[in-house]
């Protein structure tokens, strides 16, 4: 990827503090997200993908290493600087996270009203344009509880790009969607990224959809990057982990069984976990 990178992650370690001591989630992560590209971070549930997004957004601080966005080390910023940076970021949450006490229109207008002094007429036009881009201009007056899962995700997408961000992050954008909605969201992610000249980071485990729309893929397992490449390289890869993931095999480098004592010991000696 020859272009300049917008997000740089170097030597990143992260652990959650728990009652029984620190629990390592990410270890030695190195990643680059280049401007204008759509990059997917893939891996099984619980491998630290969402944590990584929260580290890029500055909602968590790394235990070691650094995360740089547009040249600034996110973890060294104070709240004011962080909020200034986040105004140039958009994020789509797993289930949309729409504000349930506001209409679709007000959800998309939220950031414009909070961060700009634009007159209401202009905000109205901008919101309708954003909703038009996701095909939901006609749903502007609906409340979030009147939307289907796919529609809610599209509204959340319109809200995420409301202020034309330089970086858009997607946390599991395809979860729980029917095949049509899934295709629509996938195409929108690609089109909006290109139209806005933004950079997109997409955390997902939907391999087939991702291979069609992204420029680059990182595979993660147990908090580490285990494989990476363009969609063509991934398709041709002989790496056992990538093979298991792409072909949805139940067992392989990612084991089917949760670590436990042997079956014989469990059955003969009682369940000891």
């Amino acid at each position: 990827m020859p272009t300049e990178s917008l997000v740089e992650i170097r030597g990143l370690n992260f652990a959650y503090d728990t009652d029984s001591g620190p629990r390592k989630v990410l270890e030695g992560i190195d990643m680059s997200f280049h401007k204008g590209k759509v990059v997917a971070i893939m891996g099984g549930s619980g491998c630290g993908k969402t944590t990584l997004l929260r580290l890029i957004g500055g909602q968590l601080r790394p235990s070691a290493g650094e995360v740089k966005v547009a040249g600034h080390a996110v973890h060294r910023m104070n709240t004011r600087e962080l909020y200034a940076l986040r105004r140039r970021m958009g994020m789509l949450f797993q289930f949309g996270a729409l504000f349930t006490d506001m209409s679709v229109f007000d959800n998309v207008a939220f950031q414009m009203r909070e961060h700009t002094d634009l007159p209401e007429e202009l905000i109205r036009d901008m919101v309708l344009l954003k909703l038009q881009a996701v095909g939901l201009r006609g749903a502007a007056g609906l409340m979030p509880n009147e939307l289907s899962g796919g529609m809610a995700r599209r509204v959340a997408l319109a809200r995420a790009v409301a202020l034309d961000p330089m970086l858009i992050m997607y946390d599991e954008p395809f979860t729980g969607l029917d095949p049509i909605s899934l295709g629509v969201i996938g195409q929108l992610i690609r089109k909006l990224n290109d139209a806005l000249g933004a950079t997109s980071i997409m955390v997902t485990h939907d391999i087939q959809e991702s291979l069609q729309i992204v420029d680059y893929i990182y595979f993660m397992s147990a908090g580490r990057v285990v494989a990476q490449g363009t969609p063509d390289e991934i398709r041709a890869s002989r790496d056992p982990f990538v093979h298991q993931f792409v072909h949805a095999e139940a067992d392989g480098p990612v084991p089917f069984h949760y670590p436990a004592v042997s079956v014989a010991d469990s059955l003969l000696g009682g369940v000891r976990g």
Partner: protein
Amino acid sequence: MADLLRRLGASLVDRIWQLGFASRFFWAVLRYSGQCLTRPNLTVREVYFSGVLSLLIITVSGLFVGMVLGLQGYETLQRFGSSEALGILVALSLVRELGPVVAALLFASRAGSSITAEIGLMKATEQLKAMDMMAVNPLARVVAPRFWGGVISMPFLAALFSAMGVFGGWLVGVVLIGVDDGAFWSQMQASVDFREDILNGVIKSVVFGAAVSWISVFEGYDSAPTAEGVSRAITRTVVTSALVILALDVVLTSFMFRGA
């Protein structure tokens, strides 16, 4: 035994830790309250949800409590031949104690629980995180207006409760039982002091309002982001609020009415 002590100790440390976190949270809410002044419509909206929507329960409860006071008060006073003092008894009981305390208990059940539920569900559905990622501080935008909405609403609700209670007492004592109307009102007017009774009652209601609102917003913000976590937080709001209101009432009363 050692295990029991260990668990008790752990629970105590946990409570102290929680109290410390709640205090820091309270301080943060105060720090981010500036927006409530610059954008008063945010607070006015919460006054509507906490205060205006609680009017019905406060009005009806106040009326019933006043009616019971009228009945019970008359029953006792007439034994000593001083049933005309019914107005004083009803008014002082309400203005000094029952108004602020019962209104605060009702406020905690009606508005406090709904504040906790709303903030807890916003947290569970990642709305607070989303707001934070949009560079909008949820403490300033969501929590502080709800806190101040509660603080502002509470004295008005307590005053309404007391007024309806006095009306209820009058209805039972004067209209139904036949206590002298003039004596009921004139004795009340002569004996209820503005500073000693009414102002102290207002101070109590403001303190209770702040306590209930603090507990409600904190429990919502601190709730585990699951259905069970939110429901536990709502229970904690109602139970803790009730205990705190009654404990604060003892403290405030002992300072306010020393031999007066």
